[in-house]
């Protein structure tokens, strides 16, 4: 009986998290359209539902019903496989992200799907596999714009993955563990002062991570793979209907994942910014859900920042992008790793 409850609760948890994640993806698109609209002094979507809140549903329905075009000269198996790789890799990483205290109910971890010892590496690995979605889409489309877009994207992701990986090492050195829960628990004691970005003096690493994450998710100012003025739409030029939607969802899901990881690594995850100053109010349920609220609030700040940057900054030139990644971010990341390990060796 117990094992049955465990399996049912686990399945329920996976289903709930997946549905919430997909809804979050849909509403991030709306958030972006609304905010970019306000930045450009217009309203953004406002016709479907109150304040345009049902716009994502209408968009989803539209994309479902559109005709799925299959160009004749494409390499069919890879053309179909590419969006599946892109979307599934971006959805898998949510599976190891903890978003609340370690509370068990009937033996089921309530606020995390899978607690993996090397959780951070799992996220990095899944992200590195996700590159194939974009690489193969451009190659299999048999279109020069697609190919150029995916070549750019692949080169960009390989270059910035190094800086991203190195920026994370400082945090791992402080924690001595790759488990995401351990990383957050270390930042849990004195509120905002013990977060890695302030208490751990990882503020440089945070900015390296942030910049590299923008490049990894192909977002402005690093959105060269989709630079519409030169490449039509980049790697997804030939895609239509749900296959296009899968790339679109993968991009926004990656944004959310990257925001979650930045929150966990640098901003104390689900811990409250006030530490113990905030009295424990409400019942058990409120105390269990409050960390989730903090986590979601921090991730929301990241998404806001993403949209804000998109509405503000122009696109880099390609040689600037490569030079910035290799000649600026990477050396700084290495210096940060060395400084952190020296400090830990002598004072840790």
């Amino acid at each position: 009986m117990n094992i049955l409850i465990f399996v049912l609760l686990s399945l329920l948890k996976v289903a709930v998290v997946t549905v919430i994640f997909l809804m979050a993806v849909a509403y991030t698109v709306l958030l972006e359209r609304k905010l970019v609209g306000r930045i450009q002094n217009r309203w953004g979507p406002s016709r479907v539902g109150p304040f345009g809140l049902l716009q994502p549903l209408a968009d989803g329905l539209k994309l479902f019903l559109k005709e799925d075009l299959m160009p004749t000269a494409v390499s069919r198996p890879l053309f179909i496989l590419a969006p599946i790789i892109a979307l599934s890799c971006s959805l898998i990483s949510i599976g190891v992200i903890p978003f609340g205290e370690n509370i068990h109910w009937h033996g089921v971890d309530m606020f995390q799907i899978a607690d993996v010892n090397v959780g951070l590496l799992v996220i990095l690995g899944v992200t590195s596999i996700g590159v194939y979605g974009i690489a193969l889409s451009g190659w299999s489309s048999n279109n020069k714009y697609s190919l150029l877009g995916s070549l750019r994207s692949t080169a960009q992701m390989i270059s910035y993955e190094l800086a991203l990986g190195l920026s994370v090492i400082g945090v791992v050195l402080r924690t001595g563990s790759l488990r995401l829960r351990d990383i957050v628990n270390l930042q849990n004691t004195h509120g905002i002062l013990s977060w890695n970005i302030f208490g751990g003096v990882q503020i440089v690493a945070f900015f390296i991570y942030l910049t590299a994450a923008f490049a990894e998710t192909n977002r402005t100012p690093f959105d060269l793979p989709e630079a519409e003025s030169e490449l039509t739409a980049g790697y997804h030029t030939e895609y239509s209907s749900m296959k296009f939607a899968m790339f679109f969802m993968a991009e926004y899901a990656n944004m959310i994942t990257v925001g979650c990881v930045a929150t966990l690594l640098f901003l104390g995850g689900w811990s409250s910014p006030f530490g113990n100053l905030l009295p424990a109010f409400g019942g058990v349920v409120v105390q269990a859900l409050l960390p989730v609220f903090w986590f979601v609030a921090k991730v929301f700040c990241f998404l806001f920042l993403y949209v804000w940057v998109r509405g503000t900054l122009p696109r880099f030139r390609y040689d600037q992008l490569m030079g910035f990644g290799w000649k600026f971010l990477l050396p700084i990341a290495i210096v940060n790793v060395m400084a952190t390990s020296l400090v830990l060796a002598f004072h840790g």
Partner: protein
Amino acid sequence: MNLAIFILFGLLCLGGALNLLLQRHPINSALSLIVVMSSLSVLYLLLGAEFLAAAQIIVYSGAIMVLFVFVIMLLNAGEEERTHGSQVAYLAGIPGALALFTVLASTFFTLRNSFGNARLGAFVATTSDLSRVLFRNLLLPFEVTSVLILVAIMGAVVLARKEH
């Protein structure tokens, strides 16, 4: 359970390796190699080497194979011609492969008892255990290997440099 996963991913690994040889298009071969490496990482995971499994995915399936695919895409390599191959390869290769397989199999069977009775999934080597061994007991080989890789990178840079 562990045995089922082992058989499944072992078969996937072998299938990927065979497909790598049989495919005529380089990009399909490269993708088969990714399948081989990813299923190998699952086998590492079954043996309790979680860091090694993650590193296998990040380094081999992720970074190195992306470069392979990148080069194939950049050169736009087409399908390869199929040749009959040399007679020597058939005459020496097949018996050679069989002999190697026999030697390895018999060695593992005779040494089976001295491996101890560890089971699949029975233990986990944590990252700190691994790094303790790597950076204390095996520090010299580790550093020498990294110098070797550095030399290889410098060699590639020298070869690729334009003459002035």
